[in-house]
């Protein structure tokens, strides 16, 4: 369980979150939605221990994330919005990170890459930005961590790749995994989500499970309604 308790975080003098609390229970795919600049990415970084709150605490399974304990980090994986991969072969990269993730599955990696129509025999330095994103998401799912955080995962992906992304996430999902997807592109993820959190500075406007699984949910409509007319 990820527990964010009454945190305050500011970049220099710009306060992003103040007195903010939120909780993510185990299992399921969470959508972390919000307007630009509401602190979605900051929240993910705080959950990963990459930022330290000035007040309050963020815990993962009861452990303070700022301690960056290996037993916590080996159960978490972050797919940031922008990143670069080293110019080495995929196999060398996997060999380097595999020992850190006890449940890393090379079969799942192959499956994810196949869903993205990509080969495993690739040099990471020669890939385009979109391809790098696909590879990194595949690695993140293959790491089989209990918590997977994705920041704007569909940014930079074409329409076909977005559809492939949904397939990859569904196939890579298991009961014990918690995936938190932070995005403002609600259309891309609405079919994936079990739970939605809509945040606006310091406020959780909506934090509910999406029960109408078999019906198409218009998440965009829900988002606009919630943001315009907060409870």
């Amino acid at each position, binding site marked *: 369980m990820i527990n964010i308790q009454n945190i305050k975080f500011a*970049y*220099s003098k710009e306060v992003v979150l103040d007195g903010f609390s939120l909780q993510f229970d185990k299992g399921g795919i969470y959508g972390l939605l919000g307007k630009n600049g509401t602190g979605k990415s900051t929240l993910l*970084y705080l959950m*990963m*221990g*990459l*930022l*330290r709150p*000035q007040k309050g605490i963020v815990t993962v399974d009861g452990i303070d994330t700022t301690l*960056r*304990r*290996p*037993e916590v*980090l*080996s159960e*978490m*994986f*972050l797919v*940031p919005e*922008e*990143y*670069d991969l*080293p*110019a*080495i072969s995929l196999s*060398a*990269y996997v*060999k*380097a*990170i595999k*020992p*850190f*993730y006890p449940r890393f599955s090379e079969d799942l990696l192959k499956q994810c890459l196949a869903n993205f129509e990509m080969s495993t025999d690739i040099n990471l330095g020669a890939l385009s930005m979109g391809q790098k994103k696909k590879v990194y998401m595949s690695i993140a799912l293959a790491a089989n961590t209990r918590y997977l955080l994705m920041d704007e995962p569909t940014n930079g992906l074409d329409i076909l790749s977005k559809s492939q992304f949904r397939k990859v996430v569904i196939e890579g999902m298991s009961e014990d995994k918690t995936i938190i997807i932070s995005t403002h592109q609600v259309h891309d993820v609405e079919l994936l989500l079990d739970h939605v959190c809509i945040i606006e500075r310091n406020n959780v406007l909506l934090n509910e499970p999406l029960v109408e699984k078999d019906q198409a949910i218009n998440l965009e409509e829900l988002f606009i309604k919630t943001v315009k007319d907060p409870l």
Partner: protein
Amino acid sequence: MFSFKRFINVARWDLSVNSKFYTRSAIMMMAFISTPIVLFYLYNMLTKGFLLMGNTTDNVEGFAVTISLIGIAYMIISSGYMFHNLLTKQGRISELTLPATNLERFLWHVVVIVIGVQLVYFCGVVVADFLHFLFRLAIQNADIQSLTAACFWGVGEPWIESSNVGYINFVKNYGYEITLAIFIWASCYTRSFCLFNAWKYKYNIPWTFLFYFILQTVLPLVLLFLGTMFFSKENVLDFMEWIKDVNPHNIIIGMDIVGILVYICIWLLTYRLYKRAQLTTKRNP
């Protein structure tokens, strides 16, 4: 808890992910060390002609001094790149989310800086020595001394043994205490570049030089000012009298102890800054 297995995994990860960076840096360094030798023989070839070069001295003394200076510059610059992984946002994400303790990751950086850099320097000198040997063979002059021995041990011809080049000579000429004091304070200076790198990831080397410039120019003036404010001329003269009676040996031992304490403080502070590193380059209190 520190895990040696995880530490090895961190080493493997870093060497894989940064293989190009390390290889390029090592090759550049080795080429840089060999440059004075190549330039020396090219210059002589152009000015004297190849046939007359057989009389050229092997110039090991000059090479050893130049290479030692290059080595010092290399230690300083590489210390300023200790946390090169943290330079970019993606680098910080990769390193700081790696499932290992802060200490394990930090110690690996220490190993790279303390052992890795020395190893590259040693290999660079050996390569330069071999190149030098090849040049001597080419000009058919068998009068040759070992550059490696001159750089590291200062043994061989009489000039080497009377010079300060090499660790052994330094000890021989100045004694263990002074050598140790110089070694400790030089290490403090070099490792302060690591400390500044943990504080700032970009432009940390110019910042460190600026710090020392201020320390060398402003600090003596401040001390002089404070001295005139709080101490009379008699106090200063008394102090001069007192220090004359102190055994120099004790002063050097004192310098060694202070140096060791400063050295430990530099590493502790560097670790503290590293441990508190965040994704943003701004640090919270």
